[in-house]
Every structure is written in C-alpha cells, then in structure tokens.
C-alpha cells in the first residue's frame, strides 16, 4: 500500500499552500503537487469601481510587494488616460515611480533572502527547526539580522517618500504621480546617519553577495544541484536589452539561450501568453501560446531576468552579473538555488539605482501628470520582485472597470515550483522508510527559492503556511505534517 504525504502549511513563504506527495508501496516517488488553497477574487470585485481607484484598491492583494501592483495598475491606467504605454510620462512622474519601485524590490528581496531563505543556508536544510528561523538568525548572527532589518527599513522609507506610506500608499495615479520628492527626505536618504544612508545600503548589498558567494564555494552541491532543471525563462527587458524592472518589452529564451519571444510589446501579451486552469489549485498555469500548455511553461523572477537580459545598467551590479554569467559560460542558468544569487545582484542594482535617482533633480520639481486621448483598455506590465506582473483592465463609457485580468509573478512560476517540489521529493523523500522534518523542509526550500507570494498568486486571503499529506496507493490519508 502506497503513501501520500501532505506538507501543510508551507512555511516562510507569503500566502497559504500545501504540498502532496504520493509514494508507492516501496515508498518510491509517484507524484507530487503544490496546491494553492486560497481564493480572493480581486478581478471580480474591482468590476464596477472607477478606473482611477484600481492602483490603490488592487495593491491590497498583497502586503509584501503592494507597490508592484500599485504601479502595474497605474501603468495600465496610463494607457487608459492617454499617457502612453509606459514611456509617455513626465520625467518627474516616471522617475518618482521608478524610485518607488526600486525601494520596493530592494526591501522585498532583502526580506526574502535574509529573513526567509538564509536560515536554511546558515543552519542547514535539516537544521533544528527551533532555531532555523529569523529568531535563530537574530540570536546567532546578530549583525546579519540587524542589516536585514535596516535594509528593509531603508527600502520602505523610499516607498514612504514616494507613495506617502510604507505599505499601501497612493503615489502613482493615472498619468503620473501625486508628489515630488521633498528636500529633507532626499538629504536624509542620501546622507543620513549610519546605517540609514544609500552608501551603507550599497556596502551591505555587496556584503550580502559576498556572504552568498562564500557559502556557495563551500556548498556547491546544494546550491548547484538542488532542484536544478532546464526551462524557458521570461522577463521584461529594456529595448536595448538592459535589465529594467519598470518598463520594456517582453523577451523569453529557451534553456539553451535561444530567443523564443523576441522583444514583443507588452500591450500584446495576450497574443503570446495564455493561462490554464487545473482542478487541484486556485493558482492558474500560464504558458507561451506557441508551445501549448504542456511545453509552454517558463520561469520568471530574478533568475529568469538575469538569464534574459544582456547587461545591467549599473556598474557594480554589472560586474557581479558578469561573474554570474561566467559561472555558466554565458549559457542560461537553470539552477533553482541560484535565484538567491540573482536576487542579491538585483538588490545591489536597486541600491545603485536608488542613489542615482535620489540625486536626480527631476524628482524635486516638474510636471507630475500627463494625459492625452482617453481609451477604454489598458495593460500594465512590470518586473515585480518575484517576476513579470501583468495587469489588464477594460472600462465602460462611465469610467467603471468592466474587466480585470491579473497574471501575477508567482503564478508564472507555478509549474517551476511544482517541478522544484518533485525534484526535492525525489531527492530527499523517495525510497526513505521514515520521513522526518528535515526532508519536508527540503521540499519547502525548493519552493522558497522562488520567493512565492501565494496570496498574490491567487489574489487570495488567508493564513500563511503550508502542509504535507501522505497518502497510500488507495488514496487513504496516512499522515499529515503541518507547520504553523
């Protein structure tokens, strides 16, 4: 009689999910699934609301990276108010939004790497769960914990001065932004007392990369082989191929690095991307249309971005990017744990870009909003911390939203995360007589590499964590491992 293991809830991810792993009579792996069990329905209840409300309302689907939704919705509304498809804003409007976004990606990446992922590295995948958490980090690696908190705080301060609040602000409005950067905020963010200044953030970002690279040196087996598998990669890139988290064209490559979606306009995303629904998860399965639902899946997020871009337009991050690229001889990097490496390079890029923008005079003065001929449909695409984010709205003649479609970053990574679960289950659980907590955590480590936001992915509400269930071959539930 076989078994089914359920891990519920999955911990140290945002949102609520569970994993089921089916084993045969000899405890060998048969099948696994990552189920996302929340549902919220933002796409439905935004209908009827005025279009200018969307950037403020829809961002409420997340408390970790609301700025991404705020900006993606605002970009869609830019199209509706005739302010262009991403490049028509005033310099002040665009640069303030970019600064907001860099602050957002910076704090979100820091949260993920230092608070959620680093306990697995510092204490080991099978380390004592009592200390394998952020409290354990604070107790045993105090300096790192302080850095993590202060870096996150810095990113949130950036959000506050651009959006009005650290979480769920109102800065981006259709056609632009509603404020300038104030001089006292500029001075304090550039030259504030240590550690709250931009130079310290750059220094610590480099420190984070050193930490990872040193760990990598000593743990190549885990970092290079854990949940590694070939895949397609998709992201938005700047028209000249640079990393651009705010605006650009859509590019996808295959596992060999061949371009399979060649710099297409984001407004045409529906010509190239579709979503499949499966009965066992509230999270949909996006795919590239020309390859179909079975083979069209792809990865998004930091790893995918560094695989698709040609260069990074900030000097220190570019240098790190070259080291990153050289590690795979310029070929696409398909190692899931290298998401962390890519994420840390992006943290450095964000810090460099924040410094550049904070010194930009356009942020202090200039027109805030631009508008043109009004339309009835808008698409806003953004590179959120976790990957490419699509917001698509239609409105009626009375300015009310009639249709909303969101393809959220984590949703794009649905199949990749399922593959990571499968890979970890095969490596750590298959054939084992007794399943212990460390083995279950290995499954979670695979998911965690993607920094999933399950709340966003289902536009859902609910408790955070994940569960693993163990079933026999007759589908009888044998065991549940739950983490609160």
């Amino acid at each position, binding site marked *: 009689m076989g078994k089914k293991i359920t891990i519920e809830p999955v911990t140290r991810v945002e949102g609520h999910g569970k994993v089921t792993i089916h084993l045969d009579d000899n405890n060998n792996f048969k099948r696994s699934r990552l189920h996302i069990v929340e549902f919220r329905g933002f796409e439905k209840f935004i209908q009827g609301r005025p279009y200018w409300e969307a950037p403020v*309302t829809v961002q*409420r689907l997340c408390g970790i990276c609301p700025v991404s939704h705020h900006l993606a919705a605002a970009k869609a509304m830019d199209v509706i108010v005739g302010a262009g498809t991403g490049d028509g804003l005033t310099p002040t409007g665009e640069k303030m939004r970019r600064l907001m976004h860099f602050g957002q990606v910076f704090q979100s990446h820091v949260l993920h790497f230092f608070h959620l992922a680093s306990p697995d590295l510092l204490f080991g995948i099978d380390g004592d769960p009592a200390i394998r958490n952020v409290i354990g980090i604070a107790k045993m690696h105090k300096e790192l914990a302080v850095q993590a908190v202060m870096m996150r705080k810095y990113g949130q301060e950036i959000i506050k001065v651009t959006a009005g*609040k650290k979480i*769920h602000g*109102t800065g981006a*409005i259709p056609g632009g932004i509603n404020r300038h950067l104030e001089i006292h905020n500029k001075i304090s963010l550039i030259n504030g007392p240590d550690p709250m200044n931009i130079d310290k953030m750059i220094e610590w970002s480099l420190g984070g990369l050193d930490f990872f690279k040193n760990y990598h040196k000593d743990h190549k087996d885990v970092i290079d082989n854990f949940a590694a598998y070939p895949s397609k990669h998709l992201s938005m890139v700047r028209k000249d191929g640079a990393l651009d988290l705010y605006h650009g064209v859509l590019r996808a490559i295959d596992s060999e690095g061949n371009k399979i979606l060649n710099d297409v306009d984001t407004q045409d995303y529906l010509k190239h991307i579709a979503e499949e629904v499966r009965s066992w998860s509230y999270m949909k399965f996006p795919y590239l249309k020309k390859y179909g639902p079975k083979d069209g899946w792809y990865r998004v997020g930091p790893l995918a971005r560094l695989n698709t871009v040609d260069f990074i337009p900030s000097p220190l991050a570019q240098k790190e990017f070259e080291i990153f690229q050289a590690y795979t001889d310029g070929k696409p990097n398909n190692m899931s744990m290298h998401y962390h490496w890519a994420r840390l390079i992006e943290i450095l890029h964000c810090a460099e870009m924040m410094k550049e923008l904070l010194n930009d005079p356009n942020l202090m003065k200039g027109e805030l909003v631009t508008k043109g001929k009004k339309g009835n449909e808008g698409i806003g695409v953004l590179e959120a911390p976790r990957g490419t984010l699509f917001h698509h709205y239609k409105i009626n003649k009375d*300015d009310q939203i009639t249709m909303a479609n969101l393809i959220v970053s984590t949703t794009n990574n649905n199949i990749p995360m399922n593959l990571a679960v499968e890979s970890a289950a095969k490596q750590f659980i298959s054939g084992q007589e007794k399943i212990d907590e460390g083995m279950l955590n290995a499954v979670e480590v695979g998911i965690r590499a993607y920094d999933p936001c399950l709340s966003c992915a289902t536009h859902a509400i609910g408790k955070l964590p994940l569960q693993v269930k163990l079933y026999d071959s007759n589908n009888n539930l044998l065991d549940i491992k739950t983490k609160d």
Partner: protein
Amino acid sequence: MKKKFKILIDGKELSVKHGQTILEVASNNGIYIPTLCNYVNLEPQASCRVCSVKVNGRPMTACTTTVRPKMEIENDTKEMNELRKIIIETMFITGNHFCPSCEKSGNCELQALAYRLKMDVPQFSYSFSNKDIDASNPKLMIDHNRCIKCKRCARGIKTDDGKDIFAFKNRGKKIMISIDNELAKNISDEKAQEAMDICPVGAILKKERGFIDPIGTRKYDNKPIGSDIEKLMEVRS
C-alpha cells in the same frame, strides 16, 4: 442691542446672546462639538444627531437649539462621546465603507470622527447591503455605499440659476440621494468639486480626480477633526 447672559459648557462660563445656537456659541469660543449633517451657510436640520449635547440633563441637538439663560451644557463627556460614537458606528455598519480604497480617505469627516471618537471595531453587525454606484453622469459619480443621508448636497448644491441638482428619492430605509443628470451634465468643474467637497464622505466624487492629494497633505492627516476650532481657544488663552 441684545442683552448678554451666561451659560456653562462643560463647566466653562460663556457670555452669550439670545438667538445664537449652542453650536455657534461653542465654535466661537474654541469648543468643538462634533457635527456631520451641519455645514457652513446651510440651515441646520439636526438629522444626524452627532452634535447632541446634554442641556440641563436632557439630550438636545447643538446645531438647532438656541441658548437660554441658565443653561448648563455637557459636551465633551464620556457619556456624550460614547453616544456619538454609537451614531458613527451605525453609519459604518449600514453602509459599505472601505477607507483603504476610498479617495476621500484623509478628507472624510466620517472617518475623521471615527478616529477622534476612538471607534475601533463597530459593536454592531455589518449589514453588507447591496448598493449601487451611479456613474452615468459625466462629471460626478455617486457611490451609494458611502452615503450617510446627511442631505448636505441636496441643501447646498444648486445650478447657477438656483435649481436643485440633488434630491432624496424613495422612503424609509430605501431612501437615497439622486442626481438630476440633465442639470448635472452641464455643471462646471468648480461646481463638481464643490459637490464633492460638501459631501462629508466619499459618496459624491468628482470624476477622474482620484488620489491627487498626496498622503500627508489631506485635511485630517496631521490633525484631528475639530482642532481648527479648538485652536481658537489656544490662541485666546
């Protein structure tokens, strides 16, 4: 010249004249009495009851009750503020007020009063009534989910030739504000803004204005409702 006499508000002796309302007297002397349906230059109607005070032991509305000699008025007391909070709570639970996504947030008198009166979670159950949005007018949008039936719009907003743009329709619990679209479609942007401003909540919105006021600059972002009146007292003392 009218003869002056004395009254007491929360123990403070004030010299007042016949004909003034309790609310006027209080406001002129830096004492804040919360209001909602009352609005500058409109005839008071005492419909919301938020300005209720105790006059010689009896609850009366401050906006319509004129001062009389020997009045002893209780205003800023635990009992009166609790009663006001209950009125505010009933407005929240009978409508659908989602402050986080409302563009009037920070400028909303209902929200500001809830903060001032320290409303936490309403003690009554939400009705979750299904209410419509009327967005058919090119200049204004009416969100019935947020209307508290104060009638300030119907009393205060007229066309240039004095015609009413807003009115009540239906009766009892079905009563709702309605807009004369024929008249309203030709109003100026200034008049549309006036209509939005006269509404104490986010029920009347000037279209496409949205979240143009940055957080930190909105009316009640930095000081509670009523502090402009209370400042008078500080200046005088």
